[in-house]
């Protein structure tokens, strides 16, 4: 990544512009976007930021700021950033304890048979990979984590569930995620975490931020219960 890869800036409405950093998903692009987001969030006139895989949507206060002035600010901010200087020390690592298994992960057998692996191998593959939070969305705190190892790629369920319990850990295509709240959902559920992904009373609100590094750690049924995990919900 170099300054030749300066993002393309395009107005999408009279209060928002879209910065496109690349046409393909990569860790380097994701690092760059996370860093630009951290810098822009402090600037006057910026109302909201929506970082995603290859883009950053910037919403600004068009009643008090001229769009060309905002463009200039964005440009100068990005120019001051060295896209190669996103060292590992800046990256947070989030570890999520998971109770894997049929009791709270009703799709784990289907996933195992689809992937031609045993249930234990599914768990092993899932927890030995370090993931990156490429985007947050769908519902508050829902982090799209990639990429799962090739052997764990599974399609979404043909019929989505109307109610996925809080904390469900699930797979779809080459991604994995934790459901922060009860919502409908079509991902394949393999386990559950007792940890809250979203907490309106906490400073960061969401446990995982875009750009974070995320790992899963297997815990026993007892540990899950001690940590406040709930077994019902389906």
């Amino acid at each position: 990544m170099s300054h030749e890869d300066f993002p393309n800036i395009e107005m999408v409405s009279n209060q928002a512009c879209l910065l496109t950093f690349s046409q393909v998903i990569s860790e380097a692009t994701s690092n760059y976007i996370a860093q630009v987001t951290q810098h822009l969030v402090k600037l006057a006139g910026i109302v909201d930021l929506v970082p995603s895989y290859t883009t950053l949507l910037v919403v600004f206060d068009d009643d008090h700021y001229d769009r060309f002035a905002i463009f200039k600010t964005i440009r100068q901010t990005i120019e001051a950033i060295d896209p190669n200087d996103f060292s590992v020390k800046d990256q947070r690592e989030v570890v999520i304890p998971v109770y894997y298994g049929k009791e709270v992960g009703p799709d784990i057998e289907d996933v195992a048979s689809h992937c031609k692996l045993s249930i234990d191998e599914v768990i092993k593959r899932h927890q030995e990979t370090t993931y990156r939070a490429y985007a947050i969305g769908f519902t508050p705190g829902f982090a799209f984590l990639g990429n799962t190892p090739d052997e764990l790629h599974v399609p979404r369920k043909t019929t989505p569930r109307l109610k996925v319990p809080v904390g469900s850990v699930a797979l779809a295509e080459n991604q994995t995620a934790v459901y922060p709240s009860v919502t409908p959902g079509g991902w394949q559920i393999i386990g559950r975490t007792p940890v809250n992904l979203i907490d309106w009373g906490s400073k960061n609100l969401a446990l995982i931020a875009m750009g974070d590094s995320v790992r899963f750690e297997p815990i026993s049924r007892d540990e899950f219960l001690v940590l406040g995990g709930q077994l019902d919900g389906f």
Partner: protein
Amino acid sequence: MAFKVIKPGLLALVQDLGRHGHQSIGLTTGGPMDEVAFRWSNALLDNDSNSPEIEITFGMFILEAQADTSIAITGADLAATLNDKSITPWQTYAIKKGDVLAFHQPVWGLRAYLAVKGGFICEPTLGSVATVVREKIGGLTGKGDKLQKGDLLAYQACSDHEQRSVPRLAIPNYGNKEIPVILGYQYQSFSTFERANFFSCDYKVSSNSDRMGYRLEGKEVHSDLKGIISEGIAYGAIQVPKDGQPIVLLQDRQTIGGYPKMGCVTRIGGGILAQQKPGDIIQFTPITVDQAEQERHLQMARLAQWR
């Protein structure tokens, strides 16, 4: 002191200008579906522009006043009555203890705004009282509940009243069905032919429309792209899924999505769209960012001048 909710109606929500700055964690903004009407209600009472108001959708909503105050009503004409006497929107009314204020059913538009002198008193969550039912945030309880029978909408009692009304010129025309669109996002992936269809055909508001988005039924439009890498969705974005039927994403929209988009409806246009009922017919009309800016600045200048 408070207004007591006698009948909660279909959907009445506490709103302010929205919960901004949290879209990076996937939290939507909420806020008034018709921002122009919302701003005028507060302006009529000389309130802060972000003071909490009630957004009343459709009607069947009845309140009883427990103390004197002054109110403003803007937005849709929902055949409102004050002690069974008809009243019209876009002006202020004096309220006495015991008065009954009712919003019956839509005559013109769909959503009315009720402001009270000094603003409704409500504890904000993450800096805003805006109610987003789907995300269980905001409103009287802080948990995204719509107004219920028996709820108390608190305000500071006040016996001064000033009779004021919005200048006729500044009142939006909900009968104007031309919704302005700024071309953007993936509009180039829609061929000239598809774009021509989109901007020349009538679209009907689907009954599946809500605060999240307005679904439209009409001539199918198709993008050359099958899908896109999920990206941030700005207010008013017109998303076109595989069935070719456009969806305009509004205040309670999801923050990211992976369907191709034609562009964005302006906030003023989105406000007019949000006043349309299922079955109403609209058309889209392309405008430039400059035109949209001018329209917005004119609207804001009218409000500022009047205050």
